């Protein structure tokens, strides 16, 4: 799903690609805080790993650390492909 600035939602369609985070659109400040803590902030490059295990989770690599997030939560993260 694209918005008018050509940013897309972080979904499993981006598996194997490197993306740059544009915005975190969570209403819950605690969730936003926890993601920012581990480095999910605007401008940071994230690799969407192609582990191809489950469609319901995404494996993301950031600063050499692998994180697993639910795909339904990742839809609140706007990214652009690098």
């Amino acid at each position, binding site marked *: 799903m694209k918005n008018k600035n050509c940013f897309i939602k972080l979904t499993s369609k981006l598996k194997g690609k490197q993306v740059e985070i544009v915005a975190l659109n969570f209403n819950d400040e*605690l969730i936003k805080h926890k993601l920012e803590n581990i480095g999910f902030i605007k401008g940071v490059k994230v690799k969407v790993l192609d582990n191809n295990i489950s469609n319901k*989770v995404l494996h993301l690599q950031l600063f050499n650390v692998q*994180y697993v997030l639910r795909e339904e939560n990742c839809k609140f993260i706007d990214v652009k492909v690098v």
Partner: protein
Amino acid sequence: MSKLSKHKDINVKKFLLIGAPNVGKSTIFNILTSSTTLVSNIDRMTTEHNMGKIKKTKDYLIDLPGIYNLSHPIAEEKETHYHLLHHDVNAIVNVVSAFSIQRDLFLTIQCIETGLLNTLCINMIDLIKTNALDWKKISQKLNNAKIILSRSNRNKNTKKIIDSLYYSKKVDPHVVTYSKEIEQWISEYSNVMPELNISKRFASIMFLENNSYFINFISENFPKHWPKIEKILVKTKTKNFYSKIRQTKFKFIDQILTEAKYDNENYLKINIPLQNKFDHFFLKKWIGIPSFIFITILIYYLAFGTYAGGWIQQLFSEALTNQNWGLSHWISKLLANAPDWINSMFVDGILGGLFVILAFIPPIFILHVCITIIQQIGLLSRVSILLDNILSKFGISGRSVINLLTAFGCNVPAIMLARSSSSKKEQIISILMIPFIPCATKILVISSLSNIIFGSMYGWIFVLLAIAISGSIALILGLTFSKTLFRKSKTFFCVEMVNWNGVDLRVIFKSVWQIIKCFLKKAVLTITLANLLIWTLLHVGTQGYIPSNGNLENSLLYWVSKALSYPMWPVFGQLNWKLTACLIAGLPAKEAIYSTLIQVSLGIEGIKTIFNYNLSISFMIFVLYYIPCFPTIKVMFDEIHWKKTLINITISLSSAYLLATSVYWLGYCFCK
């Protein structure tokens, strides 16, 4: 949070261990101090600070919960701020993982800005290639911070941290230069900031980032300085300096790593593709979930099974309590010439309780060794991913698996671990579910009873069934809370995929020894006192002392329990004062249920005469759920306050009552 306030001796030094989760702080803490804290290969295992005396000194090292940055503390992150602001900390050791240095240097820079950092410990150095980075360059860029390369799980270079703590200079806090505008505001704040243990530069940056903890601390503790600071705060509050400061720091980190010749392709030593291949295999639902179920059954068989932990427990129990050749028999013989009441009080009252605890040690040891191995090798994060899809339907995320599995050991640390949940909803639901997960003590009580009643061949199967049913009830409860109290909130799942690790037996046995020590400390005093009290109430009646072979229905315990046995009639199908007495004794600690049962039944053989199959199952169900022990209630009260704690206790008691009553009468109808 107030443990340190007891240690106000100004000659005693205090050092803080600060770092991200899962970088090895607790391992370093265990090596450098005489204390022991739990270590696990899952992030956020430490939820409160641990304080220990540095070996051969009188100074303290404080292990804090892992944090990623000092900017906007939430929940367990406030521990670090509390220590920085409320105590005269002498120095900070920042522990960073070599594996995730890009992420962790952010906190390093903030630690330097406090003005307290004098040692930077780069841990897990075995995970990266030799000479992967120019450490001298990194040290130079960080104002010549002392860097120690360590491998804490093999105790490599860890002791150099102590020398550095005492002899290295603190690093100049001005390590990053921000934009002109930000530096001007820092200067303005610094001019009006009070004298603190941390640098004024750091305090100023915290104000620019709108760190509410700092703002509240200064406004409450420095009323003379506050008006001037507030004037500046009004001007800076609406400008978004937080993200600008953050971006400057990240640019600086990029600069450091570029100059230190960081090459992502040639950095790591561990074979990530191989780990990924294994994860690819293990994380398939039809492999991972059955494997996990198999591992769980194996653990419980090893701890309680007929030819494993259960057999060892029985051996211990017989050696201690057998009335013909056990230790209590020989002690009783030694005291044969003493008055009967002394003999009985010592053997039944004091030693009876103690021997029950000692007999519990083998299964507790085996259970905790297995749980610690699972935690250490990195299985927990994989299990949380596997179960996330299922658990999300019950209002929690896969991360709660960690809390729930910890609850099988003890409910108290499991409730505290819930602080690291991704959302308030998940934290509260986890805490409300945890008392329904049977802890090791309840499992031991059930296991001991079921071995006596059903025989050792089938006893452990009953235990496994009880655990499975308890887990199901906890999940149903989670679903109910999710659909009622937290209808509009959604859960969030994010877990770090830690590396698969080997088993370090030294760390495992040290952790398990700490657990056994805590169990003995708590249990020996509580159970012995509870047992002695029960003995007194059981052997003192309206006509004085009642001998063991006397009529116990003249005792004070009989009258107290009899009164309370009326509401228990539907559960037991009879007025049973003995079982009611056991339930009362189990309120402070569940171990007392079994020791009281032995006393009121006059020995293990006597237990068989009290129970039939029906009654035994309904009694065990009641024990599993009725009321959490007092330490659990206290921790719940601290975490989720009295209203939700009261709701939980009410639900526990009602569930226990309804379930046990239904089981008893259904069994009664079928068996009739």
